[in-house]
């Protein structure tokens, strides 16, 4: 499937489905090293997103992504609201007016999202945050696009790498976010924001 408006809309629906399915897991991950509200917050956020997307009519994937951004920012009370909200906002800006994203445009969209998260949260790779999943996804997407892969294959590579990136947070000591108060005690736990990033990008690949 081409990465067009229908894809973006399907991505939104699949995201809500996967967040709903993994809500308990995200809550548990966040309870272990955070404040335990990540699953609930994202679920509430994407419910509002789906409602708004279903109620509207959009000409471009970028327009869909912009609605996702504003709804997440205004409905998710935790750090995930501004972080994912900024990611989608920058992604929407990078997507621009294109009616369909090719492989290079997709890499630009993912890069803009990752850079938005980095500039908002001031975290780097290795800080045990969602940046670890986003950066792994961007790197893999860029490599796949450079090898001439299709947009679908590029997304597939990004989703796989995001999952690996999320797993890579387990042995780390957190340097940003609520888990940074825990020091060594956060070691052995996966970062919930990195895990939800992996689910969201998996939903994007499945929709393609």
């Amino acid at each position, binding site marked *: 499937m081409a990465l067009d408006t229908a894809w973006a809309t399907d991505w939104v629906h699949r995201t809500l489905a996967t967040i709903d399915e993994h809500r308990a897991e995200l809550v548990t991950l966040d309870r272990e090293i955070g*404040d335990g509200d990540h699953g609930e917050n994202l679920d509430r956020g994407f419910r509002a997103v789906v409602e708004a997307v279903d109620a509207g009519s959009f000409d471009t994937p970028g327009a869909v992504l912009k609605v996702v951004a504003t709804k997440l920012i205004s409905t998710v*009370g935790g750090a995930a*609201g501004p972080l994912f909200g900024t990611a989608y906002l920058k992604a929407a800006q990078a997507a621009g007016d294109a009616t369909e994203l090719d492989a290079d445009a997709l890499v630009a969209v993912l890069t803009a999202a990752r850079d938005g998260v980095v500039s908002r949260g001031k975290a780097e790779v290795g800080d045990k945050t969602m940046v670890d999943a986003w950066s792994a996804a961007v790197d893999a997407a860029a490599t796949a696009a450079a090898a001439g892969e299709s947009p679908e294959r590029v997304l597939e590579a990004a989703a796989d790498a995001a999952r690996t990136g999320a797993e890579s947070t387990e042995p780390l000591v957190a340097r940003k976010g609520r888990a940074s108060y825990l020091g060594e005690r956060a070691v052995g736990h996966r970062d919930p924001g990195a895990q939800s990033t992996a689910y969201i990008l998996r939903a994007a690949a499945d929709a393609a």
Partner: protein
Amino acid sequence: MTVGILVVSHSAAIAEGTVALARQMAADVPLVAAGGTDDGGIGTSFEAITEGIGELAGADAVVVLCDLGSAYLTVDTALDFLDDDARGRVHVSSAPVVEGTIAAAVAAQTGGDADAVLAAAATAATSGADAGSASSPVLGDQTAEAASDAPSGDRPGGAVPVDGTADGDDAVASATVELVNESGLHARPAAEFVKAAAKHEARVSVNGVDAKSLLAIMALALPKGASVTIDATGPDARDAVDTLVSLVRSGFGE
């Protein structure tokens, strides 16, 4: 120059309580609370923050105090949605929310500009910690007014005079008076003291600490009966000392 203050917390009760506490000492400062999520839960609200900044549109500048990390993220995100003019008026302090807000509010009440208010809030990061290690029991009593039941008498550090250092042609003045009000130099009297000191050009110290710093004065935790030594250096040093001496002798209206 009017500086408004926005208090952003994950908890509506913390934001509103902090505003109420600060308002007691800074009645004329526009203070707005933006705590909790839109549905009354724990978290920060983009809408409430945006509306709060809007409510303070009448102020020349807005200083924002935040609690935990995502409060800063939500504030930053809200600022991104403002136009450049509106964004330029808003300054985010990294001071601890309760002490920072109170110090900021008193600085704003005394007519400080945005830089002065931010600087006052920033003192909360250090003097709050000092107070916690040196005299937390007394500091803890202040809001509860429990200190009024404590026997009066000397406490270590309560009446140590300092040498007034004069340099150049600056006038120097000094006086020592006894605290007569029941609860000592607790939060509200300390704020009155700072407001009076801030009206003078002279550098003023009280028992060796900056008399224009609310948190430094509160950290002294001076009880009823303690000696208060006021030193001033500067053109209106005499007037500063006389004014502050009368204020202490008046018992701050208690």
